[in-house]
């Protein structure tokens, strides 16, 4: 039961790279995917900055061998399939390994991008609308598509806990491995930007009309993005059997509920505090051993203050490890955020990096946290805390460690 959960493969697609290699290149140049270019046909997306992947669904489809030309795939499924395929290739999984593996997917929007096209037609008449679009609407569709592509047969599921979804997918995957239910689990999250989410966040008045500035005193809100981040997680026995070298260890995880408000975080950051503490406690490491915190840091007034308060409750000002939010580069990719940020955490460990929190200039008065603003290299990074906090008070934290 106490064996370690090892990370043996990673894959990602985002506005700053369609593969791990492209993502790595973007990090080196501290590039941002946030722009006013929009592929999404939305009035809001034309006026607000977003971090979109500038490839059409058809172009994405061409990059995934084996897809049926007749089938309609949600953009969330396409992004997920691309990143999950990269993760299994990275881990060197054989087809027979995939058959016996589990898939823990996660998404918040699911196939809403196709659902909203269907529903606009349906509203004109109940007999209208392409049912193939409607069939991709629910969250489970993307998991079924990924499982079909990768021949995963044993177990599939999907978590939908808003912006903490992918982190929770990794936690469920870790429990499956520790209990011996699966030796190998492909876990991660995917979310495509769609009208529903951009309008929803806009109605909450938390979208910035400028590039987001996480942890800055004058932050104006978040920039939505789209991405997918996937992992191959494995038991020690399976790693040994396959004779592969793990990339990192999922050494701790925490999930807590803020139980404060459906969309706002509590002033004392209770949920965030509990999630981080639990992640640290389950890892068996001390707070002082953490080398870097990849913060949730969305750039909203509410999150960044609440998260800062929670951080200071654990670390105090003088002991706070380097902190940054990578969302000024990737945008806030919702369910995928925990996935892409955990991928970044693995890259940080491999390359000795601490990522820049772009667009920061002045600290929040109440807390005074100054994040890292330039890419730092040649660091010794052994333990990273990666935060993902979401609507509904769903707060999760992962502790990712060097092997």
């Amino acid at each position: 039961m106490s064996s370690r959960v090892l990370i043996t493969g990673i894959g990602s697609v985002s506005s700053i790279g369609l593969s791990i290699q492209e993502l790595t290149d973007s990090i080196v140049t501290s590039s941002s995917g946030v722009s006013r270019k929009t592929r999404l046909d939305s009035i809001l997306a034309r006026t607000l900055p977003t971090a979109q992947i500038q490839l059409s669904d058809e172009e994405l489809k061409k990059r995934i061998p084996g897809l049926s030309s007749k089938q309609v795939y949600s953009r969330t499924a396409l992004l997920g399939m691309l990143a999950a395929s990269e993760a299994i290739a990275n881990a060197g999984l054989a087809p027979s390994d995939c058959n016996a593996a589990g898939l823990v997917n996660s998404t918040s929007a699911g196939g809403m991008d196709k659902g909203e096209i269907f529903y606009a037609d349906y509203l004109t008449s109940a007999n209208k609308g392409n049912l193939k679009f409607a069939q991709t609407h629910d969250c489970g569709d993307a998991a079924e598509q990924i499982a079909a592509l990768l021949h995963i047969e044993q177990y599939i599921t999907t978590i939908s806990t808003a912006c903490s979804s992918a982190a929770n997918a990794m936690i469920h995957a870790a429990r499956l491995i520790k209990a011996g239910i699966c030796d190998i689990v492909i876990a991660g999250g995917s979310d495509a930007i769609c009208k529903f989410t951009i309008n929803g966040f806009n109605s909450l008045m938390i979208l910035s009309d400028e590039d987001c500035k996480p942890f800055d005193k004058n932050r104006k809100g978040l920039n939505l993005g789209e991405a997918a981040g996937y992992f191959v997680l494995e038991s020690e026995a399976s790693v040994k059997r396959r004779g592969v070298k793990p990339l990192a260890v999922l050494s701790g995880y925490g999930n807590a509920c803020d139980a404060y408000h459906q969309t706002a975080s509590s002033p004392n950051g209770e949920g965030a505090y509990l999630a981080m503490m639990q992640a640290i406690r389950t890892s068996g490491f001390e707070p002082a051993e953490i080398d870097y915190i990849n913060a949730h840091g969305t750039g909203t007034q509410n999150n960044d203050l609440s998260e800062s308060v929670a951080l200071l409750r654990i670390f105090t000002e003088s002991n706070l490890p380097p902190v940054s939010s990578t969302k000024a580069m990737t945008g806030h990719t919702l369910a995928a955020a925990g996935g892409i940020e955990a991928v970044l955490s693995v890259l940080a460990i491999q390359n000795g990096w601490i990522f820049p929190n772009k667009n920061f200039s002045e600290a929040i008065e109440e807390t005074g946290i100054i994040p890292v603003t330039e890419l730092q290299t040649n660091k010794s990074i052994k333990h990273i805390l990666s935060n993902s906090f979401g609507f509904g008070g769903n707060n999760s934290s992962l502790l990712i460690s060097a092997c």
Partner: protein
Amino acid sequence: MLIRNVYINGLSAVSVQPTFDESFLDGNSKDPSFVYIKGLEPDYKQYLNPTASRRFSRLIKMSLVAAQKSIAMADGVMPEAIITGTGLGCLEDTEKFLTALIESNESMLSPTAFIQSTHNTISGQIAMMINCYNSNYTYSNRYFSFESSLLDGILMLEDRSCKHVLVNAADEVIPSVHSILKRMQLWDRRECIQQQASMPVTIGEGAMSMMISSEKKDTSLAQIKAYKLLYTLPAESSIEGQIKSFLEEAALSVSDIDVILLGMNGDASNDCYYTPVQSLFTESTQLVYKHLFGESFTASSFAYWLSAQIIRTKKIIPSCVLSDKNRTPKHMFVYNQFRGKYHSFCLLSDVEV
């Protein structure tokens, strides 16, 4: 997986049948022969504050009262995790926001419906209702939405990170989704479960809440002794073989099972997968329930409500019987699947003294 200590200590359901007041167990049932079956909603004033009642959709309200009652039955214990499975989530609020978005052409939208449209609203609102800061999860994966929730809850009890976990299921039907599902020929085939020719299966809805605990109590309803989920059957394996080895792990054989509860839904392309299972359990009483509860991504959660109640009361509900072997329900096997995928096996037994 074989399970050591998982007891059902609290249980409640709002469904299309009178399950919330439990009169269903005394033979009170509703004829589900209308367009689609609407959940029988209790008088919310007794359970929720009126402001909340006005703001919340039917699905959230059904879920909140079911959770409240299930927690109360478990002596008001604070769960260390709240896990909810929902296949389609908060449809009423999703539709409200989507319609407004399309009709207003992306302008002047009120956030209320968006806020309550996300799948995790249910688990989040239950946490807020009882001020629970502990773990909180939402699963949404078709016919494993509730099943994954229960699996995760069982794992949390078995690894001893929790003593009490509240596992919920919730799905609602709205008229537009009913009409879309009919166009998809899903869940409303107007075919019939064998021998229940007068009862076509249609689309159902409701909320189920179950407090599972590692602590056995005098009031525990039943225990979950083994549980297994299988997305697709491995090549060269049979469902009969899978079930036999599942029971063997719990040191039981097919003939030890007193009652089986099957998720047949009146759709011939789905129900054919139950035939070998029916033939396997020749000595067991065979029950079905979806002709009374309707079908949905989380309809199977009512099988758990029903089997725990049957084990507790030791009474078979006549309207659910496919074939009766007059056996006292001590061990029950609950099986659900959808067209050869999403197999879930659960062994529920009476609480050993």
